């Protein structure tokens, strides 16, 4: 009986203390000297020092932060601070730690495949409208160039400077300065954060 209780208590302790690792990606222009993991819960913040850092590619590193199963709750997040030799700090984005199945970085997700429907009827259809397909391609190329031009015209001069000041002011600045040459997906994400902050400011003033 005594042994059984001992085994049960050992099992319970190991379950409570069991650790998984959450992977956080950080964009840094230089390789950091060290990183500190942080677990943010509604009860408070706990620090994890000496967490491993892996270089994925130049400018992109992965910080692996250990998470105890007792910390993996809803409304709990993991983040990290990486420190460079020059004393610069870089924060990783927040990652929810509610579900250990989602601890991997997005790099562990499979790439979405385009469903290509290929059959004879469709091929015949395309072939009989090849002129229209060619025109569509040309029109869309022009439309893309045009909207890119519109973006470049908007994102420049005083307005760009103002946005950069706001981004820094709201604590949202990214690793690279805002520019019309950025990938539009990344640019939209950064601009939306500024817009959300402005909308909030206006709603609460």
């Amino acid at each position, binding site marked *: 009986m005594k042994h059984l209780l001992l085994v049960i208590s050992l099992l319970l302790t190991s379950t409570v203390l069991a650790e998984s690792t959450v992977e956080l990606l950080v964009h840094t222009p230089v390789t950091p000297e060290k990183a500190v993991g942080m677990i943010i819960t509604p009860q408070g913040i706990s620090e994890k020092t000496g967490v491993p850092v892996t270089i994925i590619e130049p400018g992109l590193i992965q910080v692996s932060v250990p998470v105890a199963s007792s910390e993996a709750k809803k409304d709990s997040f993991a983040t990290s601070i990486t420190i460079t030799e020059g004393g610069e700090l870089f924060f990783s984005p927040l990652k929810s730690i509610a579900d250990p199945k989602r601890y991997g970085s997005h790099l562990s997700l499979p790439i979405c495949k385009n469903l290509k429907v290929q059959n004879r009827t469709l091929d015949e259809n395309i072939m009989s409208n090849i002129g229209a397909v060619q025109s569509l391609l040309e029109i869309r190329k022009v*439309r893309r160039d045009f*909207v890119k031009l519109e973006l470049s015209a908007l994102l420049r001069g005083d307005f760009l400077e103002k946005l950069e000041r706001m981004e820094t002011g709201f604590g949202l600045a990214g690793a690279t300065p805002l520019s019309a040459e950025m990938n539009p997906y990344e640019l939209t994400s950064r601009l939306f954060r500024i817009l959300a902050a402005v909308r909030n400011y206006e*709603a609460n003033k």
Partner: protein
Amino acid sequence: MRKQYIFTILFKALFKALFVASTFVTILCGHLNAFAAEMPLVHKPILAEALPLPGQTMKLMFLLPMTKDLGLKARASVVIDGEAMDITMEGSLDELDRTFFEAEIRAPLTELSYKFYVSGSGDRVVTTDRYQILRSCLPSTQLTTVDVSEDLPKVERARLMVELSKGLEQDIQAYQGSVDILKELQERLK
């Protein structure tokens, strides 16, 4: 006169039944929050499959079926791809005069989580669970390179042109997303 009276009673009964049924269906389809017994909050969680392409506009919304109070305030604590933001939601009445809140956000690359807060009804703040959505695969954010080789067989070439046209349309939408936000920012920062 009697016929008209019966018709009025029947019409009222039908209207009430419709209202109760619609509320019931909304609650069943959505998610009735356990924390908010006094002020039920109905939200239909967003599914990963329903997420639009990264950066595209999407809406967060919920319904307060037991009130028509527009003095209430709601906000959403949103984390898009690890970036936390607080979003003020706009309240209005739906077609059945029930308070309805919505906010426009941008679709994530991979991960979105959000939680709603409703205040303004006494000292209480109604909160929901945190909803979490993770895409099952990573969508491409690379811009389309238009390169159609003349050496390809005719059918292959035609198929490639169709694929490239689709890719170009996605690029246009991605750039348009940035342009739309910039225009709104320009307007708000005048």
